[in-house]
């Protein structure tokens, strides 16, 4: 069977791994096209109220524990080169805020740094989801062809009763933590000004800073042009970007499938665990009617219960390591497609100007100058993207490898635990057998 793929099993429908879906993940509302900001009740018109109400002002500008960032370097473990890391961010303490208009959650962001450009070495601020959305938008604006880390979805439509149940908040918190740390680890994004403001500004400072960017209408205008020109960019895409695009498309397909499969495994394991909960006690029930068999039955019940606990642990491991990683890369795959689009757009701008030059006879000097600028722009964008692509691929490989290695380790550990339980039961039974046998001989 080495290297051969089995045909899709007849029971494919059980796995939910039937026809591969299109790029978007099935479980969330379709992600907004990156050029358009999602107009939601949360958005801008409510900021007026939130600015006035000091209810939301959870910002404290107090430096925290006196530990110096330098000493922290030795304490904390992370993925990138530990010696070079000088920006530490944590996201924790979700808090619910209720106003007459809305309810929302803020998260505490703690930043510790030794960088000179920061005014202090420690910061603590509170941010809500829409602040993160704003940050992401700004990063995409400033670096259209860099691979910006993905944000967790706005909310999951399927299977959610309300936005703010504990599991959802915790999952989101972890994802937001990852988001900020990924930015901090990115060689370019880490020095972004908006990022710094996000980490350090008080609530009112942030609000006023936000208003400085290009207005909503101008952003919408960009969108219309973007959609129109993106098609053109695709036609003239250089080969290396064609390859990249093919990769992105296939990767997106596969990672989505893996996400579905992994979620399904979690569900099946949970269902299995539920059934096991009843299985053990049946043996206890039986033992109540028996005399000779009591110990064996009770022993089996105990083994089943222990295996049940091991299953629970395995499930937990799955939800802690594999599922979030796979899901992040589902979001990344969408991000990548957006990045490719933006690159294509920039190319399209150039191409349209070049086309215009061939038809127009007047203003050729102006056009040529514009074309020169755009050619630079395209070259920059392409180089940035290529470099970031390589970096991203390394990161992806490392994360996937690590997540699946952990999965395998969890399973090995699970089976080892169960094995130990059953083996000790067996030993106790056979020992008794021998005891009874020797008694008979006496």
């Amino acid at each position, binding site marked *: 069977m080495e290297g051969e793929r089995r045909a899709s099993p007849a029971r494919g429908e*059980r796995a939910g791994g039937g026809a591969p879906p299109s790029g978007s993940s099935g479980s969330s509302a379709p992600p907004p096209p990156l050029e358009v900001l999602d107009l939601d009740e949360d958005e801008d018109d409510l900021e007026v109220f939130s600015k006035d109400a000091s209810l939301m002002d959870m910002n404290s500008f107090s430096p925290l524990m006196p530990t110096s960032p330098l000493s922290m370097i030795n304490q904390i473990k992370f993925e990138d080169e530990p010696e070079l890391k000088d920006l530490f961010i944590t996201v924790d303490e979700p808090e619910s805020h209720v106003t007459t208009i809305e309810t929302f959650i803020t998260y505490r962001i703690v930043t510790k740094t030794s960088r000179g450009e920061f005014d202090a070495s420690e910061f603590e601020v509170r941010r809500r989801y829409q602040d993160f959305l704003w940050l992401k938008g700004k990063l995409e604006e400033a670096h259209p062809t860099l691979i910006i880390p993905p944000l967790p979805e706005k909310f999951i439509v399927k299977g959610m009763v309300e936005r703010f149940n504990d599991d959802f908040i915790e999952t989101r918190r972890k994802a937001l933590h990852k988001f900020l740390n990924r930015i901090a680890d990115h060689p370019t994004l880490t020095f972004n000004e908006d990022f710094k403001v996000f980490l350090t500004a008080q609530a009112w400072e942030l609000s006023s800073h936000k208003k400085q960017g290009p207005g909503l209408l101008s952003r919408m205008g960009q969108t219309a042009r973007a959609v129109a020109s993106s098609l053109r960019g695709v036609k003239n895409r250089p080969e290396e970007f064609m390859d990249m695009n093919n990769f992105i498309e296939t990767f997106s397909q596969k990672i989505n499938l893996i996400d579905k499969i992994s979620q399904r495994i979690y569900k099946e394991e949970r269902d299995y665990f539920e059934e096991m909960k009843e299985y053990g006690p049946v043996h206890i029930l039986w033992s109540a009617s028996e005399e000779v068999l009591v110990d064996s039955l009770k022993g*089996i019940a105990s083994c089943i219960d222990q295996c049940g606990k091991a299953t629970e642990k395995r499930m937990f491991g799955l939800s802690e390591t594999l599922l979030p990683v796979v899901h992040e890369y589902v979001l990344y795959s969408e991000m990548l497609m957006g990045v490719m689009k933006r690159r294509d757009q920039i190319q399209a701008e150039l191409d349209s100007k070049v086309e215009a030059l061939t038809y127009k006879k007047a203003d050729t000097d102006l056009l040529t100058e514009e074309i020169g600028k755009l050619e630079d722009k395209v070259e920059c964008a392409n180089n940035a993207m290529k470099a970031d692509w390589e970096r991203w691929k390394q990161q992806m490989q490392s994360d996937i490898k690590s997540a699946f290695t952990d999965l395998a380790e969890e399973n090995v550990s699970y089976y080892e635990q169960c094995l130990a339980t059953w083996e000790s039961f067996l030993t106790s039974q056979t020992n008794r057998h021998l005891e009874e046998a020797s008694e008979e001989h006496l």
Partner: protein
Amino acid sequence: MEQAPSGMVRQLLPAPQEPLGRADAEPEAAAGEEAERELAEGPADRTMTENNFWLKKIEISVSEAEKRTGRNAMNMQETYTAYLIETRSVEHSDGQSALTDSLWRRYSEFELLRNYLLVFYPHVVVPPLPEKRAEFVWHKLSADNMDPDFVERRRIGLENFLLRLASHPILCRDKIFYLFLTQEGNWKETVNETGFQLKADSRLKALNATFRVKNPDKRFTELKHYSDELQSVISHLLRVRARVADRLYGVYKVHGNYGRVFSEWSAIEKEMGDGLQSAGHHMDVYAASIDDILEDEEHYADQLKEYLFYAEALRAVCRKHELMQYDLEMAAQDLASKKQQCEELATGTVRTFSLKGMTTKLFGQETPEQREARIKVLEEQISEGEQQLKSKNLEGREFVKNAWADIERFKEQKNHDLKEALISYAVMQISMCKKGIQVWTNAKECFSKM
């Protein structure tokens, strides 16, 4: 073709030559002794006189199953499965076995054999047959009687049934059983000629009908209780087990999808490709491994099912005892009432109601001659009744003694077999865990090389 799950063909030790009647039989009427032997062994013409059949070690196996078509009683075509029963005698000296008999039987003939045994050995816990239709099925298993896996498990079950009969100290000597193994044609007619259907107590079938017994035997009441509990708890266990199997199947099979997707993904990866591909292969192996695991578990479930059905056999013995007790009490009651009637007639007092008494009152006294005649008839009936009661009592006591002996034998067998089954379950789980460790260790290695 596998043997019974116990791993080996059970060998029958030579049966004791002396009849299994009790040496300490009460010195009652000769009829009593006859009844005693009949109960213990079965009627004289039922047991085997050809003891040399059992002197040699016998191996019985149900070695094959075959689909057949034939015509049923209503001359309609039907498909059924026939099973090949082979009997071998093993020579003591060299241990070689020679095929002595081989014939084909279908499930309905096994049923006939068992029904016959139930009638003629009411004090014996008669081994049950494997289920007629597949029950406690989890989703993958087919409930179809023609499904090859079901047929295979049934073959093993039927073999087990015959081996149980052969190792039962009383049942093994039954002639009809012997003929079942040796006489293909005409066997059905021979069984029917025993008239067992007529002898069968139809009340035994009506399991839900209650017969109020004034002095129930506490041991049998407890036993009936136990058999109800056993049946209920094993059913419950089998149901939950089937659901657990279903879920476990799901967990394993979903992992198989990783295999397919990893393989497709590996096509676009350079450094990761090999690791992904080989890890995917291990995911396939993992997903496939559940089939064998659950098949083994099915054999375990069959072992439990046997005792589920044994619970019914236990209850049948209790039931038989209950009916005997009931008949005894009815007979005693009848006798007592006749005696009272007789007494009244003799003394002239009328306490009991009788039609004759009423009419006498209404239409005038009967003559002394008439009264004498009636007394005489009653006295005859009373004498007969007393005889019957005596023999019923004896029958009852013998039944209890023999039944209880078989129940003790059964209990030991049950404890031994179920303990072994539970141990074998643990062994299965251990094997499953070891396979899991191996597959995931291999997968881990592949992942870490990515």
